[in-house]
């Protein structure tokens, strides 16, 4: 459903007969698929399945997958479990700070449809309403074998160039922002300026701008560098 909305950027085939013309792109795609740094945002119970997948029992590193600690360094955002509305804000901030191409993997049923938290008032039910999800690994919870086999599917999709749903966030930003505004209120604003980024990297699509982004522009504070000052947060001593 999500995938069909992505507008394929037309690629100019410069040397059609030359098999070596796209060898560099193929190399980069291959390296992308064989070197995945994961940022595991462990929100729920699914997190417990990741340590065995990483350590000696199943050893993800032989596939080139290794954990990283900051969103800037990571390629995959692993959401392992239910996403409460408060958590979702942080997940979106984290997602927007990652460098593209980036991939989101939802682990456990809770990210698919809310799972056992379906009736909860505080839980975001479907993760792909708020950010494009490349892969769901269903189960409550999926075993490490399932996690690794899911990540291998993602690797195949990256190698063949199909895993490009990160472009969807730029091209249909209005849709995702609308869903975010429905949850967080109309004054929702993230520190990352997605529209400017989309313009800069030429990823603007038909759905980038719309009624929700107009609402954002009305109240958007221009982003400024943080003031660097000592004692910024020091208040009067408590008596």
């Amino acid at each position, binding site marked *: 459903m999500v995938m069909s909305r992505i507008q394929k950027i037309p690629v100019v085939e410069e040397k059609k007969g030359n098999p070596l013309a796209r060898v560099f792109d193929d190399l980069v795609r291959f390296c992308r698929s064989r070197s995945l740094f994961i940022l595991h945002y462990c929100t729920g119970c699914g997190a417990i399945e990741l340590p065995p997948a990483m350590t000696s029992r199943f050893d993800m*590193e032989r596939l080139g997958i290794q954990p990283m600690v900051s969103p*800037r360094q990571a390629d995959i955002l692993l959401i392992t479990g239910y996403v409460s509305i408060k958590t979702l804000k942080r997940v979106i901030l984290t997602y927007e700070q990652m460098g593209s191409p980036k991939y989101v993997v939802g682990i456990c049923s809770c990210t698919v449809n809310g799972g056992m938290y379906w009736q909860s008032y505080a839980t975001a039910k479907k993760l792909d309403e708020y950010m494009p999800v490349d892969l769901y690994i269903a189960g409550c919870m999926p075993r490490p074998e399932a996690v690794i086999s899911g990540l291998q599917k993602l690797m195949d999709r990256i190698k063949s160039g199909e895993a490009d749903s990160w472009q969807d966030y730029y091209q249909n930003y209005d849709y995702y922002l609308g869903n975010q505004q429905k949850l967080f209120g109309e004054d929702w604003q993230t520190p990352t300026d997605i529209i400017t*980024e989309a313009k800069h990297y030429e990823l603007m699509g038909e759905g980038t701008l719309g009624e929700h982004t107009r609402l954002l522009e009305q109240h958007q504070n221009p982003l400024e560098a943080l003031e660097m000052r000592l004692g910024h947060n020091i208040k009067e001593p408590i008596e």
Partner: protein
Amino acid sequence: MAPIELLIELTLMPLIAFIVGMMMVLMMRRIAAKIQRRIGPPFFQPLYDIVKLHGKRTQVSHGLIHDIGIVMAMGGYIAAETLLPVPGMDGIAEKGGLITLLYLMMIPSLGLALGVGQCANPNGSIGIARALTAMLAYDIPLVIVIFGVAYAAGTTNLVEIIATQQAGGFATWGVIEMPLLAIAGLIAMHASLGKQPFEIYIAPAEIATGPMVEMSGKYLGGLFVMQCFQLYTTSVLYVSLFLGGGTTWFDFLIKSFLVLAIPVSIAYLFPRYRTEDLLRLMWKWPVMLGLIGLAFVM
């Protein structure tokens, strides 16, 4: 030497250092995996990582100094490679000498400090403050060791130091003649690699990889390249000072990989010291060993 020959050497030496350095990174990760009873990454994993990071679509820069800092971090080591003699190639080692090499090996930390400073991330600032403190800690034994070797050889010329050791055979190697300095040098080298007991400035669980916290894409890729050079430079310097350099590429590579395997195998068995413990340890034991060794040399 003809200028064109020199130019070829100056190009080849960093290139070889990069390729050998990538294999050293691979060895490091494989040793870590074996210690943790895992299989470990495939052979080309360091290359995949570097190509992928440079091939990212969005590259987040935090400003000009951030860019320059990464270039300094890599450039310092690339310049250091041309001063490290390898079998068959001396580069500009005879003109440079040990003192220049020591200066060039400090530039990467300073470059990182510049680059991280502009990221304005508190974890990065803490990390770089710790990195410079660690540099203060391991540089004192390192300088004692290097000057001890230079004093014993009567020269700061690395080519001559290697030639003397090779001419006299195994009995004149630095590790036989100056064992105390060699031990102190090994500890200082371990600390300068920033591996586990001395890993105060990376500390992923505590300050989120410190200096690397805001690095993405090609900036992190640059730091990965820097790590390759760092491993190569430290182990080759140790081999040149204490193990008689290399007469052929075969024994040169075996020696440098073996030397690097010692700190790496120790590293993955230990947790991390605190900053003040690192300072206390580095200023006590290696400095004491180095000073006693220096007294024997004099």
